[in-house]
């Protein structure tokens, strides 16, 4: 199934070559958890500090049990801040 993967700041290097504006439609297996998708793209789980699925933060304890659905958007950042 397809999802949109977004990797920002220092995580951009994990996106496939066809990515534009820090986002790419990618194919992942059915029933994959947030952590499994993060692993699939060889992203360090700890470095993916801010994990936002369809706009909502996924807490670290929920990243194994949260299963992605077709056309979901998973956005990832390292620990960042501003203001």
């Amino acid at each position: 199934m397809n999802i949109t993967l977004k990797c920002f700041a220092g995580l951009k290097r994990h996106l496939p070559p066809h990515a534009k504006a820090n986002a790419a439609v990618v194919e992942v297996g059915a029933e994959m958890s947030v952590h499994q998708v993060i692993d699939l793209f060889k992203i360090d789980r700890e470095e993916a500090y801010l994990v936002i699925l369809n706009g909502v933060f996924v807490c670290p304890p929920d990243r194994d049990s949260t299963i992605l659905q077709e056309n979901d958007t998973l956005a990832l950042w390292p620990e960042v801040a501003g203001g």
Partner: protein
Amino acid sequence: MSWTGKLLRINLSSGEITTEALNEQWKNDYLGSRGLATKYLSEEIDPACEPLSPENKMIMATGPLTGTMAATGGRYVVVTKGPLTNCVACSNSGGFIGAEMKNAGWDMIIFEGKSPEPVYLYVENDKAELLPADDIWGTSVWHTDEWLHNKHQDPLLRIAAVGRPAENGCFYAGIINDLHRAAGRSGVGTVMASKNLKAVAIRGTLGVGNLADPQGFMKAVNDGKAVLADNPVTGQGLPTYGTQVLMNVINEIGALPTNNMKDVQFDGAHAISGEAMHEPRKSDGRPNLTTNAACFGCTIACGRISTIDQGHFSVKNKAKYWGNSGGLEYEAAWALGADNGVDDLDALTYVNFICNEEGFDPITFGATVAAAMEMYEDGDLTQEQTGGIAFNFGSAEALTKAVEWVAAGEGFGQDLALGSKRLCEKYCRPELSMTVKGQEFPAYDPRGIQGIGLNYATSNRGACHLRGYTVASEVLGIPEKTDPLTAEGKPALVKAFQDITGAVDSSGLCLFTTFAWTLDNIAPQIQAACGSQWTADYLYEVGERIWNMERDFNLKAGITSADDTLPERLLTEAAKTGPAKGLVSQVKEMMPEYYQLRGWSEKGVPTDETRKRLGLKDQG
């Protein structure tokens, strides 16, 4: 101990310059900078005074760690009564002039009265004099800076100045120091110009010492620097992407105010983000961002230095804007960009350059343009008012014209210089001003981040993220993650952030250290500099005292609990997209608990018990 113990008092009406010892009791109660200067202001002026009258005073103040080797110890503040808000104003700036002032031997400079002629203050250590500014009155900050450096033949002279909008009475003019650092909000520059004071130029060579425990200070400071270096935010994220890294984050969670807060997500967000600033432009192959930059003593270096494509319409045939200058921070990029629906990064950078060159607040300016664009699209304004320009959302041309008009005080720029509250009242659409107590919101929508809405509503200087940045917790997970969509627990979170910020702002350190430091990292540095009584617990108490003192000032200035709210749009028009879809701000529901936690009455007034606990005067 770390304080110089001296202040300069400048009576602009008479030209008299005197020196005073710092009030010992007050510095022990209020630390320095924001807290101490607000104490002086509260004692010396009637809070009900007209902000642009000679009765108002303006205080430039450093903290005890300003000018020391503490990381980020370069901050200074400008405290006065703000014309934009009619509340207490405290605008904090980095750069180098704060440390220079301390090196010249001064904790504070108090300006009072009004000079009969334009003047600037020149300080060289113990020498302080008012000199004629006729040759630079009516010119920009950048011109003033160059003129003063040439006149005094001193490249290390540090300068803070106001531009033409301040002189013209623009309600949100700031004071720019070191060319592109700003005491930017609430119209502190307008107050300075109202006193016929064009600039403050300082050279200090005395050094900053007087530390309680020099050896302990070295250790505490080095420990603190190690924490900043090892932290992913202060060690990597902020230096690389600056505050602009937030543009995509806040858009993704559906809390990026767009088109005058009609929407909470902006299609063009990526094009104006921190990531986009790194990408080569299609036109000239160079990225917008040239490098990062640091203020005095800073080991984070979040500042942005940018260029504009020389072929961009905004700078065609304007070579003075082709070089490197202060680039976009997140708040400016949001206010100028998303809030106006403009996704042209170079246009936003040009507007930001002008805000620095002429000295006015890009947040209030951007949000005022946004209100004007909504009124234009609703038919309340026509091209007759807007200088023959179509003033639609998304128009980079309208935005760049608007900034030039405000800079020069021309045409529709005179309306835009009012700020959104007065502008919307003038054209009979007061509900379109996205302000609290007259000051425009920063870049976080209270429908998608509930705690920040309560902070906006209660901020003592009008809507402001820097008075209690709960976004750190609600969105970024610092120090721990809370749910941005719920109001539960937010009154306590807001109070904690507000009180801690009051202490940090009074130390001379930058608030950005708190992405890595807690008061437990900061207290040892202040203790080694100022004495053992400055524990983390005491700093927290000082922050709370400062918050209540500022509240008292505002109550005496005429603010009531009715002013502790948000614009109707945020209370009744639900977010249309994203996780907050269907939600409005729950600020009204949160307010009673907030007042209770503060120890205030139902009318938002500190109780006698609270005053006694914090050592505050009775209200009278």
